[in-house]
């Protein structure tokens, strides 16, 4: 092996990947592939090499790009252009692209200097957290298609999906919240300033001035009451109509009483009112909302099949390939599917050899071989050479689409789990109303005016602002810590639901096993270096996934060119190298090449892999197995301590023994489960009263993910497609799943502690209020103090637990 030792593995100057023997040296810099070199030379030519000095190896590998010859022809379609662009007139066009490979400051720099690459580009602006770039360009100089091709040429290929055509209005909502916070803060500050004479009991000012201040305060408070706090009234109203008492009900009562009593005091001249506390309350509440509404710009929890399908397909018409939008496809059209491309509609294979990976759709781990004339279901991925298919159904009627529609029906069956704050606020409201009524009845016989003022004081002081703040701050903070550790929750209610789980169900393929990457082992007597070289030299010419995997495994320097090379689809590869005859492929194929007098001792049984025959002698087999995720056994046994765990798989039971060895005997496993079976399994558990957590990854789990109380979809890379779910878990963080669950418990515990603290404040305030001792100053001090202590307490507690669980980083 001295040959390999001498070679220093160089890093690609563009993307930082370790270069193998195929490294391309250009201007004394190593590149892993022609694609990376190409990008470098374009940048070099245009004097944009600062790209490489901002961050080291900022590029993304271009290996796969050269192989796929993507066509952007559909971008010339007028209908498509008008759906994609944000704005278009005679001279200018503005468009926003989602580019998954945007990841560092170099990316920002390069994309915002796009005008140096083409004079038609007017302006480009990057949004790094959302991985988006908005580009405006001159129609006379460059077309939309050329812009996309320009981006692709420098390694930033936009991802154009059907769902990206529907523009989200997320920005509008967050802007609305910012506006409200800004206005409430402004009013809060100004009212406090105008109330200063009251606070300090300065009585020197004239009555006229006092009146002026009062009217100014009323004027300032108007937008807060009618604009900023409107959503609390709406939410309380909605809750009451659904016969639910949510936290917004006592809150709304408090706000309204606050406001009316203050108005009365100011206009009647009996007092200064509580407008400062009122504006402060709304300000703090909105801040809490801003804190809790942390959205993960990159993620989408509501994806449906539309975002899984490609936006355009290659149509073969009169033996010329066109790139057309998927929506323009009709039955009978002939499409071209290349390696790694998705089959967009149910169709029939008419040319080529199908090696279709359905794992995302069915959970079946191994690719399925299809021959000419067989039906291909939409959603499979072709792994291998290019095939041609004839469309047999519309997109809407395809199997995949129907699967989804069926799941959509089940959405309504989902049980509601009441959150802790909802339960507490119900009792809180009843208790509050009882105390208010009691106070009123107590004071009424003595003094009617005092009775009214005391009751309103009770309602004001008991306004559960600290109570309403503790949940968003505690859980919002916990959400942030979890996201940093690779676990993204849709919202804070999911976090609360996680603590109520009583049963956990795992999917196998892609969830317990890794989605990409298989382990490969050679069965038989060890290969010599020469044999390795022979095998590598053979398989490196094949594009079949198994061949590529073997090539990675056997890679040796200086391969030899085979004299003859023949690839029979479905059988294997046959080659002559250096006077050696080599066959690598299926068992059937291998038998043909074995010399009969030399019967092999062992012919290995393979589930997936290839046999090797050299010069008529059986040499052994490469076995390819799925790889289990890191520490998955530990995760499952940890979860099992608290809840029963079961495993569902759409796959055949071939891996069962492996799984048993790994995980243990007491985990129930079911194989050959269809998407519908999985859904029913969850329903059965729920009928027995279980609260189910489902962890899955593919479309085949989407029904189960919807049905379970909490559905987590596992994704290797959070940008890529994952089915609709409550949470997205980064595959690499799977080993911490049980820690995340425990942390969810801690976060809810933090909410409870802060609830108790804020209840103390409320009781303290109410005691004062029922005795009729509340002054505006007292309210103005108690309210912010209680809010701030509760916020500080929750933030510190969630931080403390995150540190202890080791997920703060």
């Amino acid at each position, binding site marked *: 092996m001295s040959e390999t030792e001498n070679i220093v593995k160089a890093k690609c100057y563009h993307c930082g990947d370790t270069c193998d023997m195929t490294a391309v040296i250009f201007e004394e810099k190593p590149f892993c592939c022609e694609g990376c070199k190409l990008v470098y030379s374009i940048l070099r030519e245009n*004097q*944009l090499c600062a790209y490489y000095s901002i961050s080291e190896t900022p590029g993304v590998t271009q290996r796969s790009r050269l192989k796929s010859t993507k066509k952007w022809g559909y971008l010339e379609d007028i209908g498509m252009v008008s759906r994609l662009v944000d704005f278009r007139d005679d001279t200018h066009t503005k468009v926003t692209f989602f580019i998954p490979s945007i990841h560092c400051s170099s990316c920002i720099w390069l994309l*915002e200097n796009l005008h140096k690459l083409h004079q038609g580009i007017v302006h480009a602006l990057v949004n790094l957290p959302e991985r988006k770039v908005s580009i405006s360009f001159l129609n006379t100089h460059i077309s939309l298609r050329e812009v996309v091709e320009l981006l692709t040429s420098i390694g930033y290929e936009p991802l154009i999906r059907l769902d990206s055509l529907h523009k989200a209005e997320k920005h509008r909502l967050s802007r609305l919240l910012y506006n409200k916070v*800004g206005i409430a803060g402004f009013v809060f500050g100004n009212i406090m300033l105008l109330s200063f004479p009251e606070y300090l009991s300065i009585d020197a000012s004239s009555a006229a001035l006092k009146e002026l201040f009062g009217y100014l305060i009323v004027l300032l408070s108007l937008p807060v009451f009618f604009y900023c706090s409107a959503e609390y009234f709406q939410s309380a109203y909605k809750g009451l109509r659904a016969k639910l008492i949510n936290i917004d009900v006592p809150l709304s009562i408090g706000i309204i009483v606050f406001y009316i009593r203050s108005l009365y005091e100011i206009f009647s001249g009996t007092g200064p009112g509580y407008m400062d506390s009122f504006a402060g309350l709304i300000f703090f509440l909105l801040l809490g909302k801003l804190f809790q509404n942390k959205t993960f710009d990159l993620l989408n929890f509501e994806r449906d099949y539309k975002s899984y399908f490609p936006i355009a397909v290659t149509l073969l018409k009169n033996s010329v390939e066109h790139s057309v939008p998927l929506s323009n496809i009709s039955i009978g059209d002939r499409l071209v599917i290349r390696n790694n491309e998705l089959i967009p509609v149910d169709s029939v294979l008419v040319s080529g050899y199908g090696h279709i990976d359905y794992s995302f759709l069915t959970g079946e781990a191994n690719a399925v071989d299809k021959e000419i004339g067989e039906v291909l279901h939409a959603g499979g991925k072709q792994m291998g050479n290019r095939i041609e298919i004839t469309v047999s159904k519309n997109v809407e009627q395809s199997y995949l689409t129907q699967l989804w529609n069926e799941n959509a029906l089940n959405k309504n069956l989902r049980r509601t789990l009441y959150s802790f704050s909802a339960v507490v606020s119900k009792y809180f409201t009843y208790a509050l109303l009882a105390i208010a009524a009691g106070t009123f009845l107590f004071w009424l016989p003595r003094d009617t005016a005092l009775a009214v003022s005391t009751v309103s004081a009770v309602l004001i002081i008991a306004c559960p602002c600290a109570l309403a703040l503790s949940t968003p701050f505690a859980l919002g903070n916990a959400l942030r810590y979890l996201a940093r550790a690779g676990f993204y929750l849709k919202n804070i209610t999911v976090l609360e639901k996680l603590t109520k789980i009583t049963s956990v169900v795992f999917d196998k393929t892609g969830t317990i096993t890794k989605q990409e990457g298989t382990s490969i082992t050679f069965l038989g007597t060890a290969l010599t270096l020469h044999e390795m070289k022979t095998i590598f030299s053979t398989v490196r010419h094949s594009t079949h996934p198994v061949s590529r995997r073997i090539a990675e495994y056997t890679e040796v320097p200086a391969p030899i060119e085979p004299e003859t090379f023949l690839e029979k689809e479905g059988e294997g590869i046959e080659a002559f190298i250096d006077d050696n005859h080599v066959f690598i492929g299926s068992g059937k194929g291998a038998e043909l090449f074995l010399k009969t007098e030399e019967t092999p001792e062992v012919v290995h049984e393979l589930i997936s892999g290839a046999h090797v025959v050299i010069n008529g002698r059986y040499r052994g087999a490469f076995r390819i197995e799925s790889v289990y995720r890191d520490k998955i056994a530990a995760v499952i046994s940890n979860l099992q301590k608290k809840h029963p765990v079961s495993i569902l798989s759409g796959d055949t039971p071939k891996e069962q023994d492996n799984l048993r060895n790994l995980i243990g005997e007491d985990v129930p496993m079911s194989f050959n489960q269809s998407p519908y079976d999985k859904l029913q399994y969850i329903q059965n558990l729920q009928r027995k009263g279980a609260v189910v957590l489902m962890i899955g990854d593919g479309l085949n789990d989407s029904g189960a993910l919807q049905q379970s109380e909490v559905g987590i979809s596992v994704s290797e890379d959070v940008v890529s497609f994952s089915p609709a779910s409550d949470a997205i878990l980064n595959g690499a963080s799977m080993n911490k799943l049980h820690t995340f669950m425990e942390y969810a418990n801690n976060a809810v515990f933090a909410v409870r502690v802060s609830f108790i603290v804020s209840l103390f404040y409320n009781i303290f305030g109410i005691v004062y209020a029922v005795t009729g001792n509340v002054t505006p100053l007292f309210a103005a001090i108690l309210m912010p103090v209680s809010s701030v202590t509760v916020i500080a307490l929750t933030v510190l507690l969630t931080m403390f637990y995150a540190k202890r669980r080791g997920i703060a980083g």
Partner: protein
Amino acid sequence: MSVIAVLIGFSLMVAGAFLGAFLWAVRTGQYDDKYTPSIRILFDDLKTEDTKHNQTNKETS
């Protein structure tokens, strides 16, 4: 004491101007992306360095 009323009027105007500036900033999307601008601001120096660097390269070659 009526000078206080005038001063209050001014203070409200100043504060209102700031509120207006904030609302304008939100409207024009300055709060949509709170991260990228912090990186972008560091680029200016690099750009000039790059052009200088390239110019000297050209002269020598």
